[in-house]
């Protein structure tokens, strides 16, 4: 009998970090090889299952930053350290870290879109010599939706950062959408570089267009898609866009491919 690919395994919750009122980071015990940008199917038996991206990783632990927006995530918020989360994965493609090495990297993230790129950012924060420079534009709706405040502070010391809020004035933050700040990136001074864009669909669309307008070639842009998934292994059909399965060929896509994915 082949492996049961839908079978989840229990993992103990080590710590729960409150990021915002509706977003908590769950650190779970897990000794699994995971690449930056991959995701897991996280479930609570008798409640349900949902795809969640890995927001950080370390020796024997993984972090998932979860927003309380649905049946499964509502219930997950009732858990305490010591309780178990059920998981299967990791699934999907990852950000090609090796390709980014020794070049400049621009990361543009909006809202919960910071989660899937957080482990990549942490990687280069811990290995700053692996990269020429890193420009990080992070956008949030308002003060109360700012995620990973401690990381944002730390990143300031090693990266060139632009943090912005859509419509609230707060010290240390610009005002406006991330797209409005893309022109500040000195693309023409880079010898070779990559751009990662992750966020809500409309934000990714307009941020990519803005990058193209600023002369960024399509093949240098990387995005990560979020879709409904019931299986994450190419069977349930929910994440399919034409002949592409986001769970198998994504969630990380190069823009040359992503621009052809029309829902």
């Amino acid at each position, binding site marked *: 009998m082949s492996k049961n690919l839908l*079978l989840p395994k229990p993992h103990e919750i080590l710590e729960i970090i409150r990021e915002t009122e509706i977003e908590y980071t769950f650190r779970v015990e897990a000794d699994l090889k995971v690449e930056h940008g991959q995701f897991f199917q996280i479930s609570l*038996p008798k409640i349900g299952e949902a795809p969640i991206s890995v927001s950080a990783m370390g020796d024997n632990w993984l972090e998932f930053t979860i927003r309380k927006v649905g049946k499964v995530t509502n219930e997950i918020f009732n858990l305490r350290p010591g309780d178990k989360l059920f998981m299967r994965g990791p699934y999907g493609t990852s950000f090609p870290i090796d390709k980014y090495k020794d070049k400049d990297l621009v990361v543009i993230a909006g809202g919960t879109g910071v989660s899937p790129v957080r482990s990549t950012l942490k990687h280069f924060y811990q290995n700053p010599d692996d990269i020429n420079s890193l420009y990080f534009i992070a956008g949030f709706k308002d003060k109360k939706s700012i995620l990973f405040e401690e990381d944002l502070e730390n990143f300031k010391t090693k990266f060139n950062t632009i943090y912005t809020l859509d419509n609230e004035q707060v010290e240390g933050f610009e005002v406006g959408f991330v797209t409005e700040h893309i022109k500040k990136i000195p693309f023409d001074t880079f010898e070779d570089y990559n751009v990662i864009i992750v966020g809500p669909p409309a934000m990714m669309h307009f941020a990519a267009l803005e990058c193209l307008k600023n002369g960024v070639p399509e093949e240098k842009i990387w995005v990560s898609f979020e*879709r409904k998934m019931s299986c994450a292994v*190419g069977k349930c059909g929910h994440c399919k866009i034409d002949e592409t399965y986001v769970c198998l060929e994504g969630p990380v896509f190069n823009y040359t491919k992503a621009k052809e994915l029309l829902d």
Partner: protein
Amino acid sequence: MSYSVSVKKMNEILKELQKDYKVYAPKRFEKRGRYSDTDLIRYAEISMVEEIVYDEKADFSPKEVIYPITQTLFYFTEHEYKESKVHDKGILIFARPCDINGIKRLDTIFLENGDQEDIYYKRLREKVKFILMECKEGWDTCFCVSMGSNQTDNYSLAVRFAENNLLVEVKDEAFNNLFANEKTTDFTPEFVTSNQVTVKIPEIDNKEILKKVHDLDMWESYNSRCGNCGACTSACITCSCFTTSDVIYSENGRAGERRRVWASCLHEDFTEMAGGHSFRNTPGERMRFRTLHKVYDFKARFGEEQMCVGCGRCTDRCPQLISFATTINRLSEEVNKLKNKKVSQVQAASKEVE
């Protein structure tokens, strides 16, 4: 070898087969049809030849035999879970060529897509042997010939039903002994060679055309017509999408199960994520998604064949009378127009250069 077998004898053979197999065939459920006073014909276990409805088209496909509408994946207790089990018998399915070819498409999704096989599908699928029901004419909504799914050699037995007897071709040697004393004939099954309906598959050969297909006005006409009911996808032999959902047993809140249930890309919540964002928000967009999956992107991905087998059940079941054959042909016409427009633009441009 082929045999002529009386109905009485065939019933004895079926009885013998049922020791090792569950036998499924299209069966009549009186007064259970969608309109008052009509019957429903769908797949179910049978034990006698007389139960098999061979001269009418089944309203539903045999896919539910191997891919049930609702299927338990795990049973949960407080801290443990157990994989669900299936029966230990083989499965024999009386099926027409379109459906046997349709199950090949399901095999592609469940056993080939991704890098792992779906064991819940495989554990039932590997039990199956087909008994081909000869289908020489089809019905008014069939277009199997256009889809190339009117023929198959994937069967263990093939049968032609006649008034008092059946002609049976035995291809699978495992069944030879059951027919050893019967009168031999030279029967081989015939296949449909033409349908009343034909379709022309749209030739979408590059992403530029695909993009224009997405933007076609024709999809908008379905906004007021398609009712998002998903009757088409549940009748379809090749629709394979599902949603998993967990249930708690109401008598005992600490026990429950994880199930998967057929899902339809025509339903409004098919792409809806937690938080409410969804991607195809109009019936037209969802109709476009379904149509392209059936006659474009399944083949684009797997290379061999279109997903649609032309059984026409979606057309039969649509309460809004949307004909899928008409939809396909309409799309083909639009694609041709797009291509001709491009050719004439190129010609006009080259004229200007001259």
